[in-house]
């Protein structure tokens, strides 16, 4: 009996492995390994999809030195839906798209300003798409980002992804992965923020840069905030890990801090029937640089001053950003409506439809606790 079962299993396994019509039907050689997808909308309402993919033909011919940076190719296709547009790349290349290696999805201005609802489903539904792929907004078109060349070489989607992922070390960059975007997308306010990309040309050399953060209200793009402001967005959102921060602490003296640890706690209490938010930002930082010459000693007083002015600076800038977000852009990219939902569910139920005005009228209090951990080589008295 055992031998019979093992025999049947071996036969089945052989059929399974060697049946070319089945599992190996879509051999990797017949797949177009997509690295980046850019989506724009044409005037006639059809989608224009730009694909950056690995040029497998060129790669096999390339020398082994280039293995780390595979040769890339871009394609531009059109269709009534994202899927049909992507699928039509097969006609151009004779290969079937493989999305699992996709690094970044870039949404052009024509999409972020009006048509986000219609494009998002494909990336959630298609099983090959990774849930952790990075999403970014283009300042103009998504196509120009993926088609940008520095010399003869395309600026790779992999490099764009690396730049977005550098938010781990640089608080000036805000990152949102697909699963986080859908999470925010399905929330009550549908407000979120995305890193904004642009093609920058300097001395005839092109590069793709993150120029700030795109702020959304009810899935529509509202405004861009600068990279400097993004640091405070990350602080308020509790997504800052490591960043540089500089400010004036005395006349003509500027200090640069290296933030090495941060934790933001957000609390809500109801005051006079309206939400009141208390945001406490705790930061640990090292002094990286002080302008105004080198001194042998640093007075404790000076250290206290750096500390207190730093706390005040962060508090002021954070409060400014909160005002800008809620009163200027009408956007809850900071996700504070969620606090109302969790902690004050009855109030939330009553005001679910006018959350924007509730958030505008709410009270916000920011408290900053800055702890200087190290001062470098300098001596403290």
């Amino acid at each position, binding site marked *: 009996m055992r031998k019979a079962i093992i025999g049947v299993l071996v036969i089945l396994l052989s059929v399974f492995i060697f049946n070319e019509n089945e599992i190996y039907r879509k051999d990797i050689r017949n797949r177009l390994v997509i690295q980046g997808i850019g989506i724009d909308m044409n005037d006639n309402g059809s989608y224009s999809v730009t694909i950056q993919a690995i040029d497998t033909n060129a790669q096999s011919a390339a020398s082994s030195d280039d293995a780390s940076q595979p040769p890339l190719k871009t394609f531009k296709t059109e269709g009534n839906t994202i899927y049909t547009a992507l699928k039509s790349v097969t006609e151009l290349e004779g290969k079937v798209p493989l999305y699992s290696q996709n690094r970044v999805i870039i949404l052009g201005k024509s999409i972020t300003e009006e048509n986000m609802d219609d494009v998002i489903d494909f990336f959630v539904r298609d099983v090959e798409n990774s849930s952790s792929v990075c999403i970014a907004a283009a300042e103009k078109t998504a196509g120009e980002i993926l088609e940008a060349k520095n010399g003869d070489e395309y600026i790779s989607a992999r490099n764009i992804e690396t730049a977005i992922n550098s938010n781990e070390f640089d608080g000036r960059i805000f990152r949102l992965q697909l699963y986080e975007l859908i999470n925010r997308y*399905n929330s009550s306010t549908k407000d979120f923020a995305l890193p904004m990309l642009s093609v920058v040309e300097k001395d005839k050399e092109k590069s793709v840069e993150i120029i700030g953060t795109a702020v959304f209200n009810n899935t529509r793009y509202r405004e861009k905030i600068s990279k400097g402001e993004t640091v405070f967005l990350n602080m308020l959102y509790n997504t800052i890990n490591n960043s540089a921060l500089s400010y004036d602490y005395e006349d003509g003296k500027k200090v640069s801090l290296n933030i090495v640890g941060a934790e933001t706690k957000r609390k809500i209490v109801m005051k006079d029937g309206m939400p009141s938010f208390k945001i406490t930002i705790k930061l640990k930082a090292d002094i990286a640089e002080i302008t105004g010459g080198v001194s042998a000693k640093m007075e404790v007083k000076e250290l206290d001053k750096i500390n207190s002015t730093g706390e005040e600076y962060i508090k002021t800038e954070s409060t400014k950003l909160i005002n800008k977000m809620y009163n200027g852009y009408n956007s809850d990219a900071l996700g504070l409506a969620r606090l109302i939902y*969790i902690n004050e569910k009855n109030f939330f139920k009553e005001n679910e439809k006018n959350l924007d005005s509730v958030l505008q009228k709410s009270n916000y209090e920011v408290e900053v606790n800055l702890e200087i951990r190290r001062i470098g080589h300098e001596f403290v008295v």
Partner: protein
Amino acid sequence: MELTKGKISTFQFFTMLFLSRTLTTVTYLSSYTENIRLSDMLIQPIFRIGIGIVIMLPLYLLYRSSTSENLLDMTIRKSKILARIISLVYVIFFFYFTVVTIARLDLFAGTIVFPETDMTYILIFAIILCCYGAFLGFETLGRSSVLSAVFVIPALIFIMLTLTKKVDFLNLTPIFYNGVDSVLKVSVDSVGQTVEYAIIALALPRVKGNIKKGFFIWLVSQTFLMAVMFFFACTVMGNFASTQLFPFHTLASLAEFAMFGRLDAIFTSVWIMCAFIKAGLLIYLQSDILTTYFGKLKRTTYIIAIGFLTIIGNILISGQIKRFTFVDNSMIKIVLTFITVVVTPLIVLVFRRKEKKKCEKQL
């Protein structure tokens, strides 16, 4: 006619049931919980424990005095026909769950692992493998369960630990936002997904050791696992979880450790191991009931027949999402669980009481 051809320890038995229930947990389909908020899914396991204990009361009363024979053995003394009818109900129930278990594996593999592939070969291969497990017997399945648990439990803990950095408590939702009714409904659904209660009803005489202790440890541990998995699914993915067909697989795909990303490969192996144990055990129990209470053929013949029918059933469902949703129906499961775990033991219990009273009168 007792099912006592070889006993396994309480530890082996409940480990086997733990893995079997783990499969149901990890293959959880978000479509079952359309009206329930995320945090309620964390509360649901607590309700589940309560319901689990209540529905097991008839079985507890039945086996309180003795676990030397199972409820079918008890019935056969009174009425052979009734015993056969009840045993047939169990066979149908176990067969149904075997088909559903493989169908879910098929849906997963066909949708996520090999979306372009015809699943027929994989299905046949998997079912033959499970039949082989059933052929090896109860003791072997018990031993394999302990070995598999050595991989499965650390693998799940590892995946969860790597996700701790992504936990965001803001993804939780207010408890009982839509009332208690929806939570209770999901808890009952969850109990209906637990074929293991019926396995306990039948296989208890094959277990040696402290059963009561084993049962409670099993009930609490699998509920705890469920709560932990829901906790991570809710806090890491938030609303995104409800957009995914298999949310726990998506959760594993988000796990990262050092330079290694997408730990869903580990998750898939957990899934396959648990499926082998579960389907193997169910096929074994069907063959054992048929051999013991219907007699005429060898156990191996029954295994082959069950395997063949399972292949036919799954081929009919494979690649047909409408048929899958029709078959993998929570109401069918709840009704069958109620019949096998509550009604049948109660009938046997009434017979036993009558028999006892008759004996007392005679004395």
